């Protein structure tokens, strides 16, 4: 349903309400009660001949009412619109064309099926044609299924016509664009290196070929390549680099922590890697002075901050738990009296690991336990220093036997909380870098500044790339790039990135690309010898070599090509997803039309289809803030009790609306275009998502339509 496509892309980003097993149980209950308990006789004598006959009449009626004339109109619209499209390059032009075609296909499909299916039964009742159907040995179940089958055939015909046009037109456009590419590459005009690489790639792979991509398991940002640092993991200070470890307390641990608090500790080494000018003690216009934030005296030798770390607890979204004083008021470290500490100065000798500890009192634990899980974080605070933690135990979380300052004997045991584990049973430990608007980023610099610059490492696990006939495996990098230097920003030069691909277990098995030219948000393609990534477990190391450029790193910025597929089959799968959406639309339309007149049925169908998205959008509003906003805007003189009443009302309403959303179908699951327009193979899982929604909502609605029609007097 491509009327909804712009919405669908937004819906895809909204959180999915969890139906889970309960939803499927309700589906099974409706189907079983409807068909077995109430409709057993009709089910027993169900005849495919009759269903097919009724479907055939629906189909013939639609065709003879010239409903298919809408397809040439849609085709004409697509051809006109594509003449005015504004594309970045040839690849983009072809993909935009494909997007328009699928948009038009979905639009035509949904509109025709809604109108046909919503009007069918009411019109047959109105014209009394249904008299001659229900007075035959036809059950209401066969009538409902027959209508669904009939309009499914109409949908398939519309899709076949539009699909054939899409295939032909997109192939034609691709053929023309590939011609342009050949002309540009062989022409006399100079082509920028990054453009040439892209053109050559497009020429080699074609503009329509689809591929499957696999994203890395993790991305980590370090100060020093872990392959060279043994068991130490280094992060830079004052660059927002940090190490976070995920924890999830069980019931016993929760109770203990809520009674005795939690200690967070880490064994930290440090090194000075560059000199930094001491902060000047100067008077400011506001009367404040620039001093170390923790109040400790700066190091005497360089006038620097002492190397300081920050221990913190983060919520499930890696955000500080604002409003709760987890660690307050810095105090001396490593003493039993230390109630709380945030910025913790380290000892003078960084070569030996020093243990830093912070304590969160029971009061803060209560807030912590409101979250499903949380992270403990350690970050370096002082510029000019880098810090190392132990690779296997970067942070330790303990629940003491007793509260600090409480020396009474106790039978409690000290509890060491292990980190949460991922699907592979590995502790969830993440090394993060500077946060950008989108994801993280690493700054660029020349090779001689390597020691001062972080590197990013993408780790692939069980990722089997598809080798081409030359024995090479393709990878793609798409990064947002920030250019902070004004002079640099004015230049159009691409960002130079050094890439090392190496086997995780045998780092000596590696391949280097220097430099890879990357442009902001444009995909850079590169390939590596298949033997380097043959094990499926490998790392890709990135260093930004362009000063003033910040290479953005999303979790899926780097992807490995695992398979390639032709356009035709991929398009077919996409159309199949649209057809499943069409089936859902038909089922909802027929369900609606069994108990309301056709205009209301059209509206009701649209509400059911779009309701999930609308409700989720409304439900996402901060109900308390919304309630306060309402009282502020409309009831300026409201008392505290009145404000609370509005707050609670809005919150309840939001909860109710969210509950409603959970029983409406999520049409975003019919993602027919997402992968196709990115040139990716339409995954079986994408088709399965659509099929699940179709079965989950289509089956019970078809049964309900049958039950409603069974008790309906068709000759009022």
């Amino acid at each position, binding site marked *: 349903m491509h009327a909804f496509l712009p919405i669908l892309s937004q819906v895809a980003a909204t959180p999915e309400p969890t139906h889970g097993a309960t939803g499927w149980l309700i589906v099974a209950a409706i189907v079983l009660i409807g068909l077995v308990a109430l409709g057993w*006789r*009709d089910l027993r*004598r169900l*005849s495919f*001949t*009759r269903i*097919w*006959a*009724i479907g*055939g*009449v629906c189909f*013939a*009626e639609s065709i*003879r*009412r010239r409903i298919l004339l809408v397809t040439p109109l849609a085709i004409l619209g697509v051809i006109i619109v594509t003449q005015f499209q504004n594309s970045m390059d040839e690849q983009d032009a072809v993909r935009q064309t494909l997007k328009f075609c699928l948009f038009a296909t979905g639009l035509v499909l949904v509109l025709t099926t809604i109108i046909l299916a919503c009007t069918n039964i009411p019109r047959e009742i109105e*014209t*009394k*044609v*249904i*008299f*001659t*159907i*229900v*007075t*035959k*040995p*036809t*059950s209401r179940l066969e009538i409902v299924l027959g209508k669904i089958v009939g309009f499914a055939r109409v949908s398939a015909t519309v899709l076949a016509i539009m699909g054939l046009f899409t295939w032909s037109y997109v192939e034609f456009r691709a053929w023309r664009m590939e011609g342009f590419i050949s002309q540009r590459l062989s022409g006399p005009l100079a082509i920028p290196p990054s453009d040439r690489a892209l053109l050559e790639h497009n020429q080699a792979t074609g503009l329509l070929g689809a591929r499957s991509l696999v994203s890395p398991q993790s991305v980590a940002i370090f100060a020093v390549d872990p392959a060279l640092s043994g068991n130490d993991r280094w992060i830079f200070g004052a660059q927002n680099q940090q190490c976070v470890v995920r924890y999830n307390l069980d019931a016993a641990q929760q109770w203990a922590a809520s009674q005795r608090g939690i200690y967070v500790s880490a064994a930290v080494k440090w090194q000075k890697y560059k000199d930094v000018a001491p902060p000047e003690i100067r008077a400011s216009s506001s009367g404040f002075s620039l001093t170390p934030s923790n109040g400790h005296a700066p190091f005497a030798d360089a006038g620097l901050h002492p190397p300081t770390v920050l221990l913190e607890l983060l919520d499930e979204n890696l955000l500080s738990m604002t409003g709760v004083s987890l660690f307050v008021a810095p105090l001396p470290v490593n003493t039993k009296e230390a109630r709380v500490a945030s910025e913790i100065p380290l000892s003078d000798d960084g070569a030996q690991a020093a243990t830093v500890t912070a304590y969160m009192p029971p009061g803060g634990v209560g807030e912590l336990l409101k979250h499903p899980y949380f992270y403990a974080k350690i970050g370096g605070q002082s510029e000019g220093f880098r810090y190392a933690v132990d690779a296997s135990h970067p942070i330790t979380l303990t629940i003491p036997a007793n509260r600090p300052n409480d020396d009474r004997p106790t039978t409690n045991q000290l509890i060491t909380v292990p980190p949460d584990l991922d699907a592979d049973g590995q502790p969830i430990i993440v090394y993060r870098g500077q946060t950008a608007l989108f994801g993280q980023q690493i700054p660029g610099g020349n090779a001689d500044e390597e020691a001062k610059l972080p590197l990013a490492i993408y780790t692939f696990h069980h990722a089997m790339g598809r080798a081409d006939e030359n024995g090479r495996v393709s990878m793609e990098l798409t990064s947002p790039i920030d250019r902070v230097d004004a002079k640099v920003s004015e230049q159009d030069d691409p960002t130079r990135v050094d890439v090392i691909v190496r086997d995780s277990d045998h780092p000596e098995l590696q391949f280097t690309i220097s430099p890879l030219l990357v442009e902001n948000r444009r995909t850079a393609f590169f390939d590596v010898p298949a033997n380097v990534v043959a094990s499926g477990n490998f790392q890709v190391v990135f260093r930004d070599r362009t000063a003033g450029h910040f290479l953005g790193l999303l979790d899926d910025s780097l992807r490995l090509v695992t398979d390639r597929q032709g356009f035709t089959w991929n398009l077919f799968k996409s159309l199949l997803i649209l057809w499943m959406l069409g089936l859902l639309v038909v089922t909802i339309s027929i369900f609606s039309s069994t108990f309301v007149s056709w205009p209301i049925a059209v509206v009701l169908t649209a509400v059911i289809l779009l309701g999930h998205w609308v409700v989720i959008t409304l439900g996402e509003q901060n109900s308390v803030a919304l309630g306060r906003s309402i009282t502020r805007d409309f009831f300026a003189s409201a008392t505290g009790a009145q404000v609370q009443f509005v707050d609670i009302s809005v919150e309840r309403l939001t909860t109710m609306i969210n509950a409603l959303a959970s029983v409406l179908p999520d049409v975003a699951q019919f993602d027919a275009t997402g992968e196709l327009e990115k040139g990716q193979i339409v995954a079986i899982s994408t088709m399965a998502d659509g099929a699940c929604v179709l079965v989950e909502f289509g089956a019970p609605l078809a049964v309900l339509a049958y039950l409603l029609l069974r008790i309906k*007097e*068709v*000759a*009022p």
Partner: protein
Amino acid sequence: MIDAAVHTEYLTKVYRDFWGRDKVRALDNLHLTIERGEVFGLLGPNGSGKSTTIKLLLGLIFPTRGKAFVLGHPAGSPAINARIGFLPEESYLYRFLNGEETLRFYGQLFKIPRRELNRRVPALLDTVGLDAKSRKRKLREYSKGMARRIGLAQALINDPDLILLDEPTTGLDPIGTREMKDLILSLKQKGKTVLLCSHLLADVQDVCDRITILFKGKMQTIGQVRDLLQVKDITQIETRGLTEAQIGELRAFLEKMNAGETRITHPTTTLEELFVRVVLEVTPAGHSSVGSEPVR
């Protein structure tokens, strides 16, 4: 086990408004039994409950009270519908299908095998008088008479045991009316039960064994047509070939017998008889008497 073709007990239908309040009592405590093999007429003025009775027997609507059985089974069951043929008061058919497609579609609803349909469809179209050209035309192009004929054909596609005909002669010309009546009689000869609902009392009189008259949803009378129509104090003598002199002698004899008011006349034929004779004389052999000739 109820062996009658149709049997109702306390059959009542009350139409209600949106709020569930009683609006119209269309049928009130109907007790009716139609035996197998008879042609039964359901008579009554508009709004008397005739159509409501038929709709209840077919399961198009549900009774407010009472029970209805058709061929020994509860009315409206899809299984029993396999043995019923129904011609509604107007031909409520798919207007975008042609005659042949229409019959094939309804045949499929009865799961009649394709080979049998290939035999039965042309035969039925012949029976109802739709010629080869008519049967290929869309139903929206049919005249009212042709629509009635194809409606009748679909009602007979399954060779039903019980045929419900709602105003079967409406829209038919006299020849069609005659053919319809002949068909009803031939169905009776085959042992079928026919429930006929009509305003045209002459038609009912011609074909029905028994009738009932409904008024305001209630049964007013029921019985054999002959019994109900017989005027017992009048004697009618019909003979052929009397001369005027013999008629005079007969009149004198009746006066001598004190027969009272006496009328001796020549009977007239009906307009229907005259029309049929005239049209059939000018219809070429093998051509249908219905439908206009298509422009070539």
